[in-house]
Structures are given as structure tokens and as C-alpha cells.
């Protein structure tokens, strides 16, 4: 009960603070306030779901889903407001897509909880939603008018379907992960996987952004125009934030440690290394939080030199949304592992049976696959209306097709070969990894026609 009271008080306090702000500005129902309200409620829901995950107190769930409902209402209002303000469906920028992604995630969480009784799902989805809303606060942009190519109903259909499909894929991933827990997969396997994921995050940041003398390259930001700084068409200006590179490299080694100890334990067949590995996870979380804090402080403001141009340039968190979400995601993944390590027994009791989870995963993919198909089809139709070609093998298109093929393979293996359980769960997880790459990786690494998003 204490947790409910605490969360309730925190929500009340934050709402009161927000209210004071509103009174000062005299504008109650603007988008920032609505999003802030959504953030407060989602955060409350996340805390309660997490509390439920850790302690298993059933009564938390009721309040958690109430908070989710309230957050969803605020979120819906924010979307409606944006829509009204812009005069078109809010799907044209990363910010606007996050808005609908978070919305879909909240809806699906409630559906999974009410319809299928997967109560603990909020423990995973709500923190994701919170990260989404925080990113939105940073990426908050003025309503940009649409360039001619984006003025099409088909675009809205396409992006809505994409968000729905990706949210369904995210859910199937969470369910598959839960299945693996219920299927008695060893805790140390989760250790290896979570550690490898955080390692991948830091490795990609360090490998692409480490600069000479221990700096970290970040995109320069123009606070007046609220946009990235471009040297020429498509070429961004990077600034070097000193020392952050060393810190990232250090964290890279520390997050690699649990994986190394796990490897040693497997190689030497010595269980005592696993205890060391768990301690290393603990250490890595501390260091990750420190890195995140440093990153937040250094990248949020200040002016830094650049290798490509003379003078000092400002940067902003809004200029590095992917690094930020990577760092937050890393902390979050490690925390989830700790939750599993400490509360495995309780989790086993709280989650639906492995058989049920397996079936719900399959059902979620049965929902995601037609949505993916329709998303690709509507995108092709739109491209045909705009560029005169329904398929041009641009990287985003190709990766969408790859995602579709991976899920098609999953369905074939399941239906004709009778794949159930672990193998199906691995497939569902791999499918979601491809989705993530299509969504983030392609935008970031393989630019093409989809320059808008």
C-alpha cells in the first residue's frame, strides 16, 4: 500500500506544480501541458507496475491501470490538439510518430492486461512509453508545414499502420521474452543477452562517435531554428564534447565485463564466475547511470569546438535522440535483468503459463503481420502517387520487406513445421530486432528516400 500512497502523492505533487505553471502562463489545454500530464501518469503507472513486478502485490495493478488510462486520455488529447493545430494527422516527424507510438503502446498494454490477463506487461511497456514521452519533450518541434510530397491521405494511412504494426511487434517481443522466463530459461542466459545488448549500444556509440583526445562527436544544434546544423545538403556539422568519449569507452568495458565473466563461467565450468558477473552488472548500472547523467549535463547545453569549422557551436539533447534513447535503454535493460535476478520466483507466479504466453505471442504476430502487409502496400501506393514508382528498393522499403519476410518465415515454421515454444520465441525476438533496425538503424545509418522520418 505504501507504494500506492507514495506514487499518488508524487502524481498529486507534480500535477500541482504543473498547475502552478499553467496558472502562470494562463493556458491550460496546450500540448506541452497535456504531454506533461501524460508523462506524469505514465511514470506513476510505470512505478506501480514495477512495484507489482518486484513485490507481486495485486492491488498495485488496479491503480497502475487507472494511471495508464489517465495517461492515455492526456495522450489522446495531445494528439487531437496537435492534429487540430497542424491541420493534418500528426505523422510527419519523428516527434509526431513517437506520439502515436506511445499511444498505441498504452492501448496494447491495457488490452493485454484486461483481455489476456498479462498483468506484468506494464513493467516492460510503461518504461518504454516513459522514454518515448521524455524523448518527445526534447524533440518537441513547432508544427512544420508539410512539403508537397507528404500531403497525402495515403501517407497518414501508411504511418498509422506502421506504428500499429511496430507496437504489435514490440508486444510480441515482450511476450516472447516472458515466455522464455516461464519456460525456465536459465537466468545466466538472460545475463548474457542483456549484457550483450548494452554492450552493442555502447559499442555502436563509441565506434561511430569517439573522437581524438577522448571526445564524443555530437550533432550541432541551432536553438533559434530548433534544427540540426547543416554544412551542406545532408551533411551535418558535428561538435566534439571533450572527455565524454573516455567515459563512454570506460562504460563500454564495464558493461562488457558481465558478458566476459559469463563466458569464463561457461568455459571453465565454474559457477563462481556468475556471482562475479552479477556484481559486474550492478557496477555497470551505476556507471551507466553516471554516464547518462554526464551526457545529459554536457550535451544539454554549452558550446563546443568542431573539427570541421572554426568557432564554438551549441548542441542539445534534441540533436542526439538516438544516443539518448540508447543510453536510457541500456540502463533499463540492465534494471530488467536485476528484476529477474532478484524476483525470479515471484515473476514465475505472476506471469501466465508458458503455454499461454506462447499462444498469445503467436496471436500478436497474427495481428502484426497483416498490419505490416497493409503498411507496405499503402506505402507502395503512396510512392506510386508521388514518385511514379511503387517500389524503388530504397533501404527503408527493403528493410520493411525483410521484416515482412522474417515474420512470414515465423508463420510458415509455426503453421507447417509446428514450431512452438523456444524456437518460436527466438524467432519473435529476432523479428523485433529487425523491426528496431528498420525503424532506427535505417533512419540513422542508411539514408534514402525516407528522409522525412
Amino acid at each position, binding site marked *: 500500500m505504501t507504494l500506492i500512497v507514495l506514487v499518488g502523492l508524487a502524481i498529486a505533487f507534480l500535477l500541482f506544480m504543473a498547475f502552478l505553471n499553467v496558472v502562470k502562463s494562463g493556458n491550460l489545454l496546450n500540448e506541452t501541458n497535456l504531454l506533461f500530464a501524460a508523462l506524469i501518469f505514465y511514470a506513476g503507472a510505470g512505478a506501480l507496475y514495477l512495484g507489482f513486478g518486484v513485490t507481486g502485490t495485486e492491488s498495485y495493478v488496479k491503480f497502475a491501470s487507472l494511471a495508464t488510462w489517465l495517461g492515455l486520455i492526456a495522450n489522446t488529447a495531445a494528439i487531437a490538439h496537435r492534429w487540430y493545430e497542424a491541420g493534418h494527422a500528426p505523422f510527419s516527424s519523428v516527434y509526431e510518430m513517437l506520439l502515436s507510438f506511445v499511444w498505441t503502446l498504452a492501448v496494447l498494454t491495457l488490452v493485454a492486461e484486461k483481455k489476456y490477463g498479462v498483468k506484468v506487461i506494464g513493467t516492460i511497456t510503461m518504461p518504454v512509453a516513459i522514454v518515448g514521452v521524455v524523448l518527445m519533450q526534447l524533440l518537441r518541434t513547432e508544427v*512544420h*508545414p*508539410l*512539403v*508537397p*510530397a507528404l*500531403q*497525402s491521405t495515403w501517407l497518414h494511412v501508411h504511418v498509422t499502420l506502421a506504428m500499429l504494426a511496430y507496437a504489435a511487434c514490440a508486444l510480441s517481443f515482450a511476450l516472447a521474452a516472458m515466455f522464455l522466463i516461464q519456460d525456465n530459461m536459465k537466468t545466466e542466459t538472460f545475463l548474457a543477452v542483456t549484457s550483450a545488448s548494452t554492450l552493442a549500444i555502447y559499442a555502436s556509440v563509441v565506434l561511430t562517435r569517439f573522437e581524438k583526445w577522448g571526445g564524443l562527436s555530437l550533432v550541432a544544434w541551432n536553438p533559434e531554428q530548433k534544427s540540426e546544423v547543416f554544412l551542406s545538403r545532408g551533411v551535418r556539422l558535428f561538435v566534439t564534447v571533450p572527455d565524454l568519449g573516455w567515459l563512454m569507452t570506460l562504460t563500454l568495458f564495464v558493461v562488457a565485463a558481465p558478458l566476459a565473466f559469463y563466458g569464463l563461467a561457461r568455459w571453465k565450468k565454474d559457477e563462481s564466475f556468475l556471482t562475479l558477473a552479477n556484481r559486474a552488472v550492478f557496477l555497470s548500472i551505476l556507471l551507466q547511470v553516471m554516464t547518462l547523467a554526464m551526457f545529459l549535463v554536457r550535451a544539454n547545453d554549452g558550446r563546443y569546438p568542431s573539427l570541421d569549422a572554426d568557432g564554438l557551436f551549441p548542441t542539445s539533447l534534441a540533436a542526439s535522440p538516438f544516443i539518448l534513447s540508447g543510453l536510457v535503454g541500456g540502463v533499463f535493460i540492465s534494471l530488467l535483468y536485476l528484476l529477474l535476478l532478484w524476483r525470479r520466483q515471484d515473476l514465475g507466479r505472476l506471469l501466465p503459463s508458458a503455454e499461454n504466453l506462447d*499462444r498469445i505471442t503467436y496471436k500478436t504476430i*497474427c*495481428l502484426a*503481420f*497483416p498490419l505490416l*502487409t*497493409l503498411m507496405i*502496400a499503402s506505402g*507502395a*501506393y503512396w510512392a*506510386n*502517387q*508521388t*514518385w*511514379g*514508382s*511503387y*517500389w524503388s*528498393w*530504397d*533501404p527503408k522499403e*527493403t*528493410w520493411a*520487406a*525483410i521484416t515482412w*519476410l*522474417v515474420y*512470414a*518465415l515465423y508463420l*510458415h*515454421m509455426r503453421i*507447417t*513445421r509446428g514450431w512452438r515454444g523456444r524456437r518460436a520465441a527466438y524467432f519473435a525476438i529476432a523479428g523485433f530486432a529487425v523491426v528496431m533496425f528498420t525503424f532506427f538503424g*535505417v533512419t540513422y545509418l*542508411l539514408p*534514402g528516400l525516407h528522409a522525412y522520418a
Partner: protein
Amino acid sequence: MALDFRAVAHKTWRTIASIQTGVVLLILVVILAAVGTIVLQRPVTEPDEMQSAYSPQALRILDTLGLTDVFHSWWFLGLMLLVSLCIVAASIDRFPNSWRYFSRPYKYPDASFRRASHPQKSLAIADEESGLVAAERALHSLGFKPERVVREDHFGIFAERHRISELAVYIVHASLLLIFFGTIVDGIWGWRGYLSLNEGQTSNLVEIRDGSKRTLPFAIRCDAAGQENYKDGTPKKWWSKLAVVEDGRDVQKKEIVVNDPLLYSGVRFYQSSYGPNGKVDKLLLVAAPSNGSGQKQDIGLAVNDTVPLDADTTVRFAEFIPDFAVRDGQVYRKSNQLENPAAHLVVTSKKAGKDFDVWIPAMDGVADNSKSPYQLQATDLKMGYFTGLQVSHEPGQWGVWSGVVLMGIGLAFVFYVVHMRFWVVPVHDAKTGKYSLWIGGSANRNRDAFEQRFNDLVVLVEEDLKSIPRTSPREQVATVAGH
């Protein structure tokens, strides 16, 4: 030998039709497509960008392997053909079975089927007829149309729904083949190009991607084109008024915008860009005689136009330089951007038998502005605009779109339409002499939801059976009559 050949053919067929082959092929497609997004592709990359990204040897190897144009290489096309072949073979291999299943529904379960069937339930009944009637009523109330199956030595009830669901997967596979067919047709007979038109210009020459030109059997004329901006200056709308000219007549007219193309005899014209073409549409001038007598006159000139100023004086617009610089008494063209424009006009006087070079703006040492019999002053410079049109001919796209629609329908059937069957058979136990009602059911997917429905049915039948003895009107009448 003949036998051997048949064995080999059979084995090949089995390999192509197997799901393993399909999976391996799909994984290959995934890998190669991923490679195609990572290696720079020639059709969408500038040649010098290719050269700076890879060393000459690496580039040669990539080119030889076709990795710089994966999606148009012969082996990718071959792979797609193999996938199609695999889908066709797998469908042919499995279709007869499904078709038998579909065309000759299994209506009466024999004893061994009844033993293995799940879910199933046996209920005690007084006699065969009352049991079957109760089952029929229950099935009706669940929305089924039960059918009495009467054979020589047995009878029962069969009810089903959505039998088409058994064939849905073939609809999906057929739709995929239709899409492939459409793209192959486009790959062979389709083409894409670019047509740039100045306002008022007519052309039938399309620039194809590979640099060649294609002559259309009709021409396109651009009557007007323009751009509308948002308040902050970003473009909101590009439009072009186009006319199709065939045999000297206008056969079709349309104002196109982005996302709304013009279609004429299978060729589509898409609004793709708009901007100044760097050429002067009209230079507006005021000409006043240098001696101060006579009237000022307004004239408008395009490049190379000659206009009379009086009986023996003419002015010609000789040259336009969008960005000029003067060095050593010569005028140079610095760039083609409209930065610092200059106009070269030639005033010819027959009386004096002399040409005067007039430059706007005036340039000392180059121009004879002050000597000219007329002083020219520019009032406005109207630049010409071009409209950029993407032109494409995609005869196969109807295959693609009908394939997409068919796939949507097929997937809806595959995932959400369940073939449900119920069997009801009265069973007479020879030893005890008692009758029981065997109820069985089956669904091709979503079995947990089906079991719920099956249980509902059993409950309904049970209730109906219990209520018959008490409420059957005939029985009550008989009792009354007996008294």
C-alpha cells in the same frame, strides 16, 4: 534409364516443393536484400561518390559480383524466379489434398475418428431422435445450419462454417505470384524517365534513367506552372497545367500537383520539381531618346528579340548573363546562378550605320551606353520557370495492386476466419442397451476459442435434453388424456 530419370525428376520436384527449400530461399533473399542496402547502389548514387567510397579494386570486385546493383542483377532476378517456382510447386503439391478436404467434406466420423477426436463429449439420451433434435436445436441457436447425414447403416448430424478458410493460404500465395508477375512485366516493358518543360514548351522526348531518350507517340505541352508557399517560405504546392497534344490537337488537359498525376495511354506524368530555368522570359525596359525630344516608350524583350524604337532604330536583346564579372574590358559569365545579372542589348541605327552595345547595368569601358541614341532603363526582369515531370510507364502495376488486394483478403481469411466443424452421432451400446449422443468438433486454428464454443454447445444440448421430458407438450397432453 527411364526409371532413373523419373526418380530424379521426382526427387527434384520434392526438393523444390519442400518447405525447407522455401525457407532457405527466403533467407537468401533476406541476406542479399540486406547487402543491397549496405553496399552503395549504382542506380541511386553519383559515380564520383562510388569512387570515393570504395577503392578501385574493391569497386571492380563489387561490380563483377553485381553487388553494386543487387536489385537489377540477373542472380537476384533468378532468385526471385526460384522463389516463385517454389511457391508454385509447394502449392501444386499440397493443393489436391486441400481441395479434396474442401470439395468432399468429412461428414460422418467413423469409430476410429471418434476415438481420437478432440474435443468430444458423450451425453446420455433416451432415444436417438430426441438426442439429434436437441443437438439440431442447439446448433441452430449457435448460428449453424445442421445437416442430417443419412447413410445405409448409420446416421448423424454435420454442421460447419467457413470451409473456404482451408483454401485461404492458396489465395495468399496466388496473390504473391500476381505481385511478382506485375513487377516482372514492369521490369521488362516498363520504363521511367524525366521530362523538363518550360512554360509554353511542347515536347515528346523523355530522358530515361540510363541516359537514353524515348520518343512518345504524343507530346506534352506545359501551359503554366507555379509554386505556392507557406508563410515561412517553404513550398506548399507545385502545380503544372499540362495538355496532351496528339496529331496537332489537344486531346486532354489537366492541372497536376504532387500526388495527383496525369495519365494518358498508360503513361503517367508526375509533378516532381519546379524552379527557375535560368533563362529570361522577358526583360521590361523604358527607352527614352538621348536627345530629350520624343516620347518614352515601354518595351518588353526576350533574348534575341528585335524591336523597332523608331523609323530607323532597332534594339536587340543580344545576351543575358545571370552572374557576371568584368575583367580587362570583357564581360565574363561567373556562374549560372541568378546572382548578379547583366543584359547585353544592341541598339542599331541605320542612319548612323552603327551598332551600339548597351549593357544593363552600365559598364565603363565595355558599353557604349552614353553614345546610344536611346537611353534604356530596365524596369523588370521576368525569369522563365520550368516544371520537372517524372514520366513512367508501368503496364504491370494492375497485377501488383490486384495482388495486394487479394493478399489482404487472403490474410484476413488465413488469420481471422476459422473453419469449424461439429459432428453429432447417436451411439447404441449393444451390451447395456443404452443410447448416448456423441458430439465432436474441430477447428483449423484458434483452438482455445473453439473449445469454449464447443463447451457452449454441449451445455445447450444438455439443457435441451433435460427440458424435453418436462415440457414436451405431447407428453403433457398424453398424461392428461390418461387420467
